[in-house]
Every structure is written in structure tokens, then in C-alpha cells.
């Protein structure tokens, strides 16, 4: 089973040492019946500082497992993950995370949510100032004193994005952050995220099901194989921003990714049915 791996000559010049090195990382889980599920097999990825990497793959391909390990919520069964040369040892404020279901603290106001991560490093006044700046950047300045309960899903996710960026982490991990939003809100948030990213150049690792979202956002797309997850395709996306989803180049890139994914989807389904009949 040959894995198509396009080692890219990355075009941007300003990029230095790898910010994240994922070296031969495997992950196995034990299921309830004492069996072993191999989520990720010997995966190696180098991510450079300032890259916007989007990971796409069939469900159960281990992409969330990978992100959880990057976040420090889980550790590899074998292999190593290093961020700036340091092994990961639990969650850290330098690796911010944006979750699919927003994870805002409902007992805090919007601004207190954004200030949450600034408590240790900033005085109260300074924290308020930074938080307000970020809220205004995501267009929610006037909602600072509201509680998250009163916001729509898209607004909640903008607060969560502001909250993560406000702490100025080196790496931002995004776990299907726009997965629960409607198409229009999703597009709006993608544009906002790109704008913030182009101004602040964080290293972003972004997970999604959506091929269109991947091509729209990424400067590098990684496609995972069906379980056990490995890198199937690692491709730079060199389309200039703002990208048009209707342009021929966009469609062409999408098609390449879809074809790679289709092969894996077919495997996922045959895997599922084999599982079903074997016991």
C-alpha cells in the first residue's frame, strides 16, 4: 500500500525552523472489550512556524487524536512530539485550543471569558485592554458585558477565537471549530480567521471534515488515511488570498483532495463491514 507523499518545496521564504515536529507517532487505544484500536500509525509531520496546516480525513482517521496529543491531553503510545524542541508535557497556554462546541465559561461575561487566560500575566486593567482589543477585532466589542448564553453559535466561536488569540500562544489548535455553524456564518468566520492569521502569523493546526474549508484556509493540507491514520497526502496550497471557491484552480485543488479522500472512504467502509462480519 503505497502512500502518496508529496514533499513540498515550501515557497515562502520567511519560514524558519520547524515549530512542531511529529516524529513516528503511533497511538493505540484499548476498547471496552479488551481489544486494541490503532488510531494512528507511525506518523511524521514537520510543521513550520507560521504555517496554517489543515488536516482532513475520514472520521476515525486519528486526526482528533493527533490534535489531542498536540494539546497535551493525550500522549503518544510511541514516537515523539516536540514543540520548539521541547517534548509536550500536558496542556500549556502556549498551545491554545479552539473547540467545536466553543467551550465558553457560561458563568463569565464575554469579556471575562477573553480575560480568563490573561490573569497570570497581566494586571486587571491591562488584561481588560487586551481582551477588548480582541473582542473588537472579531467585531463583538459591544457584547463585552453579555453572557455567552445570549450569543449565537457564530458569535460564541468568535469569542472563543478572541479568547485563544488574546493569550498570544505560539501554536493554535482548532478542532473542527466551524463544524456546528451554518454555511454563511462558517464562511464569515473563515474570512475573519484568515484576516487575523495574516496579521498575527500564528502556527495553526486546523482539523475539519470539509475539503472546501481546507482548500479555502490552508497553506498546507494534510490528508489522513483511514484507520490506522497515516499521512496520505501532504500538499501545499499556493492559491492567492482571497480565494474564490468557484475559480477553476480552487476546484482543481479540491478535486485532487477529494480523489485521495474517496480512496480512503472506500477503505473505511470495507473496514467497517469486515469488522461487522468477523465477530
Amino acid at each position: 500500500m503505497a502512500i502518496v507523499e508529496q514533499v513540498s518545496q515550501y515557497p515562502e521564504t520567511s519560514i524558519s525552523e520547524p515549530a512542531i515536529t511529529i516524529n513516528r507517532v503511533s497511538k493505540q487505544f484499548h476498547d471496552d472489550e479488551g481489544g486494541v484500536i490503532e488510531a494512528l500509525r507511525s506518523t511524521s509531520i514537520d510543521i513550520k512556524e507560521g504555517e496554517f496546516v489543515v488536516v482532513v480525513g475520514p472520521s476515525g482517521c486519528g486526526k482528533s487524536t493527533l490534535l489531542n496529543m498536540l494539546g497535551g491531553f493525550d500522549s503518544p503510545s510511541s514516537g515523539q512530539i516536540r514543540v520548539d524542541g521541547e517534548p509536550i508535557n500536558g496542556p500549556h497556554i502556549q498551545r491554545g485550543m479552539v473547540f467545536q462546541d466553543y467551550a465558553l465559561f457560561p458563568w463569565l461575561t464575554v469579556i471575562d471569558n477573553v480575560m480568563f487566560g490573561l490573569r497570570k500575566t497581566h494586571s486587571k486593567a491591562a488584561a481588560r485592554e487586551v481582551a477588548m482589543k480582541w473582542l473588537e477585532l472579531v467585531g463583538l466589542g459591544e457584547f463585552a458585558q453579555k453572557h455567552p448564553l445570549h450569543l449565537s453559535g457564530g458569535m460564541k466561536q468568535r469569542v472563543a477565537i478572541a479568547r485563544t488569540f488574546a493569550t498570544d500562544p505560539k501554536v493554535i489548535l482548532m478542532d473542527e471549530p466551524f463544524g456546528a455553524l451554518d454555511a454563511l456564518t462558517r464562511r464569515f468566520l473563515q474570512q475573519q480567521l484568515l484576516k487575523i492569521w495574516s496579521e498575527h502569523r500564528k502556527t495553526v493546526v486546523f482539523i475539519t471534515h470539509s475539503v472546501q474549508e481546507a482548500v479555502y484556509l490552508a497553506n498546507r493540507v494534510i490528508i489522513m488515511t483511514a484507520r490506522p491514520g497515516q499521512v496520505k497526502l501532504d500538499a501545499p496550497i499556493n492559491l492567492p488570498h482571497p480565494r474564490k471557491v468557484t475559480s477553476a484552480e480552487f476546484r482543481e485543488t479540491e478535486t485532487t483532495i477529494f480523489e485521495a479522500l474517496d480512496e480512503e472512504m472506500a477503505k473505511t467502509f470495507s473496514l467497517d463491514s469486515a469488522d461487522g462480519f468477523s465477530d
Partner: protein
Amino acid sequence: MPDKSDIPSLPDRIGFLSTSTVGHAGRASKTIAQKGGPYVLALIMVAVVWQVAIVALNPPSAILPSPSKVARTFIEELLSGELPINAWVSLSRVTIAWIISAVVGIPLGVLIARSRVAEKLIDPVIELFRPISPLAWIPLAILWFGIGESGKIFIIFIATFFPIVLNTVDGIKRVDPVLLRAGQTLGCSNGPELFFRVMLPAALPSILVGMRISFGTGWAAIIAAELVAANSGLGYLIADGMEILRSDLVMVGMIAIGIIGVLVDSIFKQLASRIA
């Protein structure tokens, strides 16, 4: 007669985004009026049925006094200070025991929710003791503590302890793990900091429900405890009324219990809605 309080609640629901710009005070006074209305109506309805029963059955007043007689006694007792003093005694007994329950029960609940070992050790004990009504403890309480204050505090402690512990356990266990993860990626160390900044506030609404429920169970139990062994309190007022064949006094005590119960409960609800 249609319930008037239904009408103003409608626009509240339509524009909750815009109404939240109205100050808290405005909303609070509205809800007090909204909530008080039905209770006043209920009292009037009970009085009407009661009066009809008296006209129809014509019972001796020592068995069933008229609403107006009870209302007169109520006012008399209120003005003489007898009713407020006894109500105060009962309330303070419940409050003291309830605070002790919270001080012991909340940390215990957190421990059970966080530690497997503690859960395995403590949970069976709680499950065994929980079905025993606090009233069943009254004889032992009298044996152990006599009819003084400590016996009553003990009974109310039993009555208020379990709802507080169980709701705390439930609240801590139900904290969304993603909130804990968010807290960790925002710099909380995995210990007291994460507990006080994320876990406890996330569980607080559930803990407050436990506090509210337990005040109710405590309030019901104090009356029973005072009926059996006390020389003050609303329960004593009722028991005394029965002994001197003053059913109007008994009913005044009962009405006071109901009114105070509703008032305290609504204060808790108001408090909970402010926090959550």
C-alpha cells in the same frame, strides 16, 4: 378568571436579546409581582372553599374555625410578637443546621465526585442512610441530646445533608470536560486552580439547587421536630394550639409555615437565576 401574570411574560420570550438591556432591578421587581400574584389568588381560593364548607357543614369553631377568625388570630399573633418570634426561632434553627450541612456536605460531595476510592467507601453509607426519614431520628435525638437546641440541629442536619451532598456530586460529575480542557489551555494548572476557576463555578448551579432543596426538607423537618420536643418554634406553636384546643392557632402556624417556605424558596430561585 384568566391568569393576568401570563400576559407580561410573552414579550419577555420574544426578544430576550433586547430585554437583557433592561436592568436587573426592573426584571426582578416584575418577577416578584408575577410570582406573588398566583399565590395571593391561591390563598383567596382556599378561603372561599373553606368559607363554603363552613356554611354548608356548620362545624363547631373549635374543630374548624372560619377564615375570618383565623385571619384575626393571625394578625393578633403577628402583632403580639408571638408568631414572629417562633418563626424566627424555627428559621434560625434550620439555617444553622443547613449551614453546617453545606460546610460538611459540599467538600464531601466534591471528594466523592473526584475520587473513585472515596466514592466506593462513602456512597454505600449514604445510600443506606438516605432512605431513613429524618423524623425517624427524633427519638434518638431526644435520647442523645434531650430537648435542647442541639437535638433539633442534629435532626435538621440529617434532613439537609443528603440533598446537598448528592447535588454536589452530580454537579461536579457533570462538568463538561471540554471546559476543563479550555481552562488548561488557558493556563490553569491542574490542581486547585482548575478546581476553583473552572470546576466549582461550573458545578455551582447544581450545588445551589441542592442548597435550595435541602432548605425545603429542613424546613419540613423542623416543624416535626418541634411538634415532638420543643418549647419554642412554629411546630411548638401548633402543638400548643392543639393542646389548648385552639384550632385557629394551629392553622395560623400552618399558614406561617407555608408562607415562609414559599418566600425562602423564591429568594433562592432569584439568587440562582442571578448566578447562572
